[in-house]
């Protein structure tokens, strides 16, 4: 029962050419597991571009994922990165952030992870306005497990658990996040690489619960089951059917099978974060006895 030998770290054979993204990613793990035309890689690229734009100190950025195709993001990004359990990246990130409030904590996960099994954490973190940057790749399906329905699957769409078409109304995640109190809510598609980068750059510096939904193609499963063509066809669909409407009322941005996709920044407000509110309130009530208050004022005794 004693452990056997350590397997040597096997460095994946990659091209000697260096992509500028190399410092940001664990290149020894390339190629990634995502299918051809999957949009997750593009979303990751946009995040990296936002880091570059902001010249973020990456030593102070953590990324937390749940389980799913998107959940694998944590494994590829060269940050302190946590691949947790299905549905739980938000409470994990909550602990991480509150244990060290200097960290910027990003949650990068799939729609199923965040809104099915993780739905409760999602709404409560939004309510608390917990200072997390939540990036949700929405491909309308469970990718990792092979294409079952998600709470985002549009009505009538075929999945492996709705073989005759989905008969259950989906969530509009932007609406849900907004209704629960998120500070920032936006939606873009994998095609909107520049706007996505901008959104990511915005949330990286914005306090509170920030939510960006990234609509992405899953050609292997969602597109195939629904005969939507190749990933490129889907990108073209985004091109032709996206309506950009900043400030749109989130309730009016539902996504319907074959319908237009309303994108834009829907919410941008400044509720105090959970920790700000704690510090403010407890500081007021407890005065000098509030330890974090003393520390925050630079008067910490330790």
């Amino acid at each position, binding site marked *: 029962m004693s452990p056997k030998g350590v397997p040597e770290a096997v460095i994946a054979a*990659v*091209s000697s*050419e260096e*992509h*500028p*993204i190399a410092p940001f*990613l664990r290149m020894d793990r*390339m*190629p*990634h597991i*995502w*299918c*051809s*035309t*999957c*949009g*997750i*890689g*593009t979303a990751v*690229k*946009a995040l990296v*571009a936002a880091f570059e734009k902001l010249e973020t100190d990456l030593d102070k950025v953590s990324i937390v994922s749940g389980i799913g195709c998107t959940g694998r993001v944590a494994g590829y990004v060269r940050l302190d990165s946590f691949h947790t359990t299905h549905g739980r990246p938000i409470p994990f990130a909550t602990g991480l952030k509150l244990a060290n409030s200097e960290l910027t904590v990003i949650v990068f996960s799939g729609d199923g992870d965040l809104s099915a099994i993780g739905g409760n954490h999602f709404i409560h973190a939004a309510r608390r306005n917990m200072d997390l940057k939540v990036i949700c790749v929405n491909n309308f399906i469970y990718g990792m497990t092979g294409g079952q329905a998600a709470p985002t699957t549009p009505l009538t769409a075929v999945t492996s658990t709705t073989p005759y078409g989905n008969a259950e109304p989906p969530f509009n995640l932007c609406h849900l996040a907004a209704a629960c109190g998120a500070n920032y809510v936006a939606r873009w598609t*994998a*095609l*909107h*690489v*520049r706007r996505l*980068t901008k959104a990511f750059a915005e949330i990286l510096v914005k306090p509170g619960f920030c939510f960006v939904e990234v609509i992405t193609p899953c050609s292997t499963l969602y597109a195939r089951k629904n005969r939507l063509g*190749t*990933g*490129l066809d889907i*990108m*073209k669909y985004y*091109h032709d059917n*996206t309506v950009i409407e900043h400030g749109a009322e989130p309730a009016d941005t539902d996504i319907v099978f074959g319908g237009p996709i309303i994108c834009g920044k829907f919410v941008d407000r400044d509720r105090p974060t959970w920790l700000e509110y704690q510090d403010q309130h407890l500081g007021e009530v407890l005065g000098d006895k509030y330890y974090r208050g003393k520390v925050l004022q630079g008067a910490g005794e330790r």
Partner: protein
Amino acid sequence: MRFWRTPLDADKMKIPRGELHIIVERCKGCEFCVEYCPRDVLEMSDEFNSKGYHPPKAVRPENCVNCDLCEMICPEFAIYCLTVEEEPVPVEGGKTS
């Protein structure tokens, strides 16, 4: 949905020139770069890489203005563009091509 920058200095501007790099073995042939290159620099190649995908090839490299879009949109981190500085050239009416 073409991404483009309006030049600010219409009289005289640098045209950034890009030097395209394609990591053929990493490409999964999605065609995004080809489709969304605003300058039609790329085409899909007939060749296969060892995984059986067709990578893109640069058919009009001289057109590349280093807009980075291929790099941004490639889900495989398989293509990128490095800047090649050129002399400023006079341009008329802000039109760049």
